[in-house]
Structure formats: structure tokens, C-alpha cells
């Protein structure tokens, strides 16, 4: 027992050390995201704006520069970090829980449902202006998820390995249904279609991120992260399937319900803020496994940090790659994500 008592502080210290390292990396990424933008603003100006706002320093600055740094770039970088974390963590949880390396947060019909919700509000005009596109997307995402979950349950999904197969199939069916609904609504839309960016928002876009979005995204991302850390051992135990997880003392049904529920909530909120950004939830967990291994105690936090940094970087690229114009961030995540994914696959095969 004395051995244990001596040992524990070390364990906590090393955990704390890794946590601090992760936080520093994350902070650096957020600062980088704040410094780099569509237009060149000198680093000293950025530092002065941050000093003015955070420390109350009174540097005289151009209000446009101040606004761009403080009200555009900083909240945007924070929201990007939260979305990266949320999506990547959702991916890692679903991949482990469903024992499917191709699982991603949109598997549960969430993205399709969000699209339907968004076009229902914007094009079909449901809610008559009282409901924002984001709220519509959120409601659509949750409805789609409930439908998929209900379908999976009715089809006998649950603790067994076949059960995890059911939810994948139900997710595919649900996604198809909601994508069809989206197309239907667009085709039947009441106003003339100018092809002007029908799906621009749905491809993912962070340019609308402001402080109110930060206050929504941060707690939700933290919720996802904490759930992953809390359930790290349970997720490990799913390595040999749900029955073996149960044999190792995991309340399988409860764990599945809680984790899939949290995943759905996190994804739905993130999609409602920034649209559905692809590839993050699929690729980042694999990249993290490649770096820190498969144990969720490390994998969860590592995925969170990598996801956050990746999305900030992708957002910076999307703003700067074509001067004066912004690309949908989903294009960047796919362009960068797909080759990384291929590389991991190839290297992973060699070590086997």
C-alpha cells in the first residue's frame, strides 16, 4: 500500500505534464490562428490587441484591426478548435464502440439530418424567421439521430456484435432518407434558385463564428472530452467486442447509450455551428492511434488535441490559400486528410 501511495503522485504528475503539454500546443495553435488571416496584420498589432483586451493595456489601435483580431479571428480559432475536438472525439468513440474503423460522426445520420433541418428553415421557410439555420440544423440532426437509433433498436441492435452492425445499417438508411428529403426541399423551393452557394454552408464554414458560438462550442467540446476520459477504460474494454466488455464489468447498454448520445449531441451542435466538415472524425482518430497507440486513456486526449490543431490549421489554409477568397474548409480537410489517411494505412500495414 505504501508503494501505491508513493507511486500515485508520480502518475498524476505525469498526467498533468502531458495535459499541460497538450494545452500549450493548443494555445499555440489558437494564437497562430489569430495571427494568420485573409489580410496581413502585423504581429505587434495582434499582440497589442490581445494585450488591450486581456490585460487592459491601452494601446491606441485601428478599430477595424481590433475588431478583426478580437471579434473575428480569435473566436473563429476557438470555435475551430472546439469543432476539431468534438468531431475527432466523436469519431474515436464511435470507432471503438461500434468496432468499425470506418465509423465517423456522420454515420448516425447527423449530417444528413442537419442539412435537412437547415434547408427546411432557409428554403421551405419553416419557423418563419424565428428559427435560425443553426437551430434548424441542430433539430434536424437530433431528429435524424433519434430515427436512426430507434430503427437500430427495432431491428434488434444492442449489446451484440450484430447489434453494432444494425446501427451502421440504420445510419446509412437514415442518411439516404434525409439526403433525399434535402434534395426534395431544394427542388421544391419557393424562390428562384440562382445556384448561388446552395450547399456552401453545408460544406462547412467557420467564417460566421463569433463569441456567442464560442460559449456554446467550448462547453460541448469539453463535455465530449470529459466523457471520453471518464469512459476511457470502458472503451478499451470494447476491444474484443461487447460481450467481452460486459465480462470485464462494463455496463454495455448504459455505456453505449451514454456515449452514442454524447457523440450525437456534440456532433449535432458542431454541425449546427459550422456545417458538416468531413474527414476530421474519420482521419484524426487514426492519426492519433498511429502516434500514441490504442489505449483510450491517451488516445482520447491526443485525438482531442490533434483534432483541434488540425481544424485550426485547415481553417487558416482555407483563408489564405487563395488570396482574397475563402474556400470551404471541408475541401481543405478532405484534400489534406485523404493523403494522410492513405499514408497511415500504408505505414500501418508495414508494421503488421
Amino acid at each position, binding site marked *: 500500500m505504501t*508503494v501505491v501511495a508513493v507511486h500515485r503522485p508520480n502518475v498524476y504528475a505525469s498526467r498533468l505534464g502531458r495535459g499541460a503539454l497538450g494545452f500549450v500546443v493548443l494555445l499555440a495553435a489558437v494564437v497562430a490562428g489569430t495571427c494568420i488571416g485573409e489580410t496581413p496584420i502585423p504581429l505587434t498589432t495582434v499582440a497589442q490587441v490581445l494585450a488591450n483586451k486581456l490585460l487592459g493595456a491601452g494601446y491606441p489601435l485601428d478599430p477595424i484591426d481590433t475588431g478583426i483580431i478580437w471579434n473575428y479571428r480569435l473566436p473563429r480559432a476557438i470555435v475551430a478548435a472546439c469543432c476539431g475536438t468534438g468531431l475527432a472525439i466523436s469519431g474515436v468513440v464511435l470507432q471503438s464502440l461500434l468496432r468499425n474503423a470506418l465509423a465517423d460522426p456522420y454515420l448516425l445520420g447527423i449530417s444528413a439530418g442537419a442539412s435537412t433541418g437547415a434547408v427546411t428553415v432557409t428554403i421551405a421557410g419553416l419557423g418563419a424567421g424565428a428559427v435560425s439555420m443553426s437551430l434548424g440544423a441542430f433539430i434536424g440532426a437530433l431528429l435524424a439521430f433519434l430515427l436512426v437509433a430507434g430503427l437500430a433498436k427495432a431491428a434488434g441492435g444492442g449489446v451484440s456484435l450484430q447489434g453494432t452492425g444494425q446501427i451502421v445499417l440504420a445510419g446509412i438508411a437514415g442518411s439516404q432518407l434525409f439526403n433525399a428529403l434535402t434534395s426534395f426541399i431544394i427542388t421544391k423551393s419557393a424562390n428562384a434558385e440562382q445556384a448561388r452557394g446552395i450547399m456552401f454552408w453545408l460544406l462547412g464554414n467557420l467564417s460566421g463564428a463569433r463569441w456567442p458560438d464560442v460559449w456554446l462550442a467550448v462547453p460541448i467540446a469539453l463535455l465530449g472530452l470529459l466523457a471520453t476520459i471518464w469512459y476511457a477504460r470502458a472503451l478499451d474494454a470494447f*476491444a474484443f467486442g461487447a460481450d467481452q466488455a460486459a465480462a470485464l464489468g462494463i455496463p454495455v447498454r448504459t455505456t453505449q447509450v451514454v456515449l452514442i448520445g454524447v457523440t450525437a449531441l456534440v456532433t449535432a451542435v458542431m454541425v449546427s455551428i459550422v456545417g458538416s466538415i468531413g474527414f476530421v472524425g474519420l482521419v484524426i482518430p487514426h492519426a492519433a492511434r498511429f502516434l500514441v497507440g490504442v489505449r483510450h486513456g491517451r488516445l482520447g486526449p491526443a485525438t482531442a488535441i490533434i483534432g483541434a490543431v488540425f481544424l485550426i490549421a485547415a481553417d487558416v489554409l482555407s483563408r489564405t490559400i487563395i488570396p482574397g477568397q475563402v474556400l470551404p474548409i471541408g475541401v481543405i480537410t478532405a484534400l489534406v486528410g485523404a493523403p494522410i489517411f492513405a499514408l497511415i494505412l500504408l505505414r500501418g500495414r508495414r508494421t503488421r
Partner: protein
Amino acid sequence: MILRTKDLGWSVRGKAIVSGVDLAINEGETLGLIGPNGSGKSTLLKLLGGIRQPTRGAVSLQGRDIASMPRRKVAQIIAFLEQQAETTEAITVRDAVELGRTPWLGPLQPWSPEDDRIVADALRDTDMTGFEKRQWATLSGGERQRAHLARSLAQRPEILLLDEPTNHLDIQHQLSILQLVSSLPVTAVIALHDLNQALSCDRVGVMAGGRLVALGKPEDVLSVERVTAVFGVRASIITDPADGTRLFRFHSPS
């Protein structure tokens, strides 16, 4: 009576897989379960371990209804090793065996040297020392089986439920595993294919068509007539001149 069932049954879509099983397992005994494929052995083990919820009857563990106990508490008492538990994760043997400590560790509780010691013991007992860093995918069938068993041992259970643990094992490891299990101070219920291995258990239960058709000492239960009736083969018993052990020999039915 450490583990007991009463009119235990499990059916799926109206088809009974296990039905009417009354079984009382004594503390410390090794119970062999035999029966042809599809006779309900695996399902019975899952019911005994609380992995499946019975559709009829109940399982009581140390006098408490297993369904009402927290999963974690059950897993501190029972280790269940199923057949063909596989993974596509790139985990090492050490990772897999460490999973056995799961029921004893809270969500944020750190790993302790005690856990290290238990894992090392489990690896040694299953002859897997030195395999710690090996990737799961590189293991042979027998090595995987032994690693699974090591994981079950790392649970430090009072009851071991093993579903055909000697599958894939070479003869030396078959014998050493069974010897290890019987030497441990645990209660064990083992589903077995090999009737000769069943002969060395304390008691043997015979499953057929989802029912427990016989239960008792091996020499009482494993008669030539019953083996013929249950397995559909002709059998004869011969005695090993070396040590006087009885052995089954099988022939085609006709």
C-alpha cells in the same frame, strides 16, 4: 453454492436455445460442460456470467440475483472467456492482459504496481511471459487463447467461465492450461469438446437440445450409452495401462 440457476431459459424469436436448466455449482469445483455443437453450452455460460439476460428463470451469484448486481461487481467475481473473441485493434499482448484489471479500476484511478504484479503473474501462469510487446495480429491461435486466459486470470476472479479454452492449443498447452485451472483456488465452469478432458473434471454436465440432460461425477455421467445417445457416435472405454486412466475411443455410428 456459489452459483445457482433455477429453471433457467433463454430463447430468441420464440426459439428456445437454453431451457429448464437447474444447476448448482459448488465453491471450488471444476465443472465440465459437454454436448454437441448447438446444444446451448456457450449460451448457458453467457447466462451464468450475466452477459445475457435470461428470458426465463434466474441466476444467483453468492445468493444474489446476478441481474440486479452492478456489472463491475459481477466482473470482480466472475471472469468469462468466450470463444473467438477477436479484435482488429493494433493492441499488444500486454494491452490485452491489462484489460483484465478493468473491473478493479475506477474511471480515473491510476494503474498501480499491484496491477503490474498481477498482470505479470497472469502472463507467467499462462506461459506468455516475453510476449508482452507482441502485436495481437501476429499471434497464433494458441497464443491468442493463452493471452485471453491470462486476461481472465488478471481479473483475479473467484469463478472462471471458460468456453472451450483448449481450442487451438497444442497438446502440451492443452494439458498445462487444464492443470493450471484445476490447481487455481477458483470455481471453474468449462465447456469442453474433448470428452477425455471432461473425465478429469470434478463434475460433468451434459447438454443436449438446450437442456441439461445429466449432471454428476464423470464416471457416472459419461457412460458409453449416454455418449452414443447425445453425440450420435459409438464409443468404447479403454483403460490406459500406464496409469489406469479411463479413455474414450470413438467409432462412426454405423
